[in-house]
């Protein structure tokens, strides 16, 4: 039976990617908010955010995806694979047919425009199991984000599936 998971890929378990920083602008938040059809004025109007006691325009809860993805996906063109994703972002498995699997995230502190965020990313586990149509590889990442006040913004486990 075909196997997708290599010994080299298993060696990525525990790998910590370089720490990244991300400076959040009002326009980053508005781009995300408009793209996703956001309707809550808290995420569209800086004046509403300030009136409610925040230090800047408040990002919608799922904006954190933009932060933790962009932090590792802003790379030179030659570093992209044929599927459009960065080459060195994943353990060396013999397929690139990936999709999202599961997300579990704690969001204790909202992200605001003007924040400088520090992002950590680690490979927590890599494993293979047989699916109905063949082998599947699961890669579980752990992301953390803190802001400039040392407040935790995100603790996330994110599992991607490859077939």
């Amino acid at each position, binding site marked *: 039976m075909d196997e997708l998971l290599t010994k080299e890929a298993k060696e990525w378990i525990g790998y910590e990617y370089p720490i990244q920083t991300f400076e959040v602008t009002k326009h980053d938040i508005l781009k995300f908010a408009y793209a*996703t059809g956001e*309707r809550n004025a808290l995420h569209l109007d800086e004046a509403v955010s300030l009136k409610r006691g925040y230090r800047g325009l408040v990002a*919608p809860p799922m904006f954190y995806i*933009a932060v933790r993805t962009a932090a590792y996906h802003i790379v030179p063109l030659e570093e992209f694979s044929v599927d*459009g994703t960065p080459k060195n972002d994943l353990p060396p498995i013999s397929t690139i047919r990936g999709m999202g699997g599961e*997300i579990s995230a*704690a969001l204790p502190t909202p992200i605001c425009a003007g924040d400088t965020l520090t992002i950590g990313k680690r490979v927590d586990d890599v494993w293979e199991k047989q699916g109905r149509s063949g082998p599947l590889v699961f890669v579980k990442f752990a992301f953390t984000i803190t802001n400039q006040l040392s407040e935790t913004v995100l603790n996330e486990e994110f599992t991607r599936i490859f077939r």
Partner: protein
Amino acid sequence: MAEIKQGTELESEIRTLGNLELFLYSASVQIPHRIHYDLDYAREEGHRDILVHGPFQAVCMVQQALGGLGDDWRATKVSFRNLSPVLVDAPFECASSLIEVSEDGEEARVEIISRSLDGQTVFTTGELVVRRGA
């Protein structure tokens, strides 16, 4: 606004995400995966059409739940499990209900789901923890 008690079903929403939405979402989160904008490539990977990003579906689900609760509620925990992909231009329904409410009524757990309009296909399931006034 919805009554904050266990069992309350929040008003469901139907969303349809077209190429423009997928392009703008890809750009806003820096996800350049071709399955979200290149039909030929998506077919090479065995998909019938361009796929909606799993996290974009999740955004729609969070918006539906928080929209039903009111603007003074905030999500403090989110979890999602993608079961089946949503295709571009295919309408899907986001629905949610309160499964637990704290004694003071300031925190709740919300079950969320996205599914096909005929209810036959579940795309994503999940849960939110929401707080009022945070």
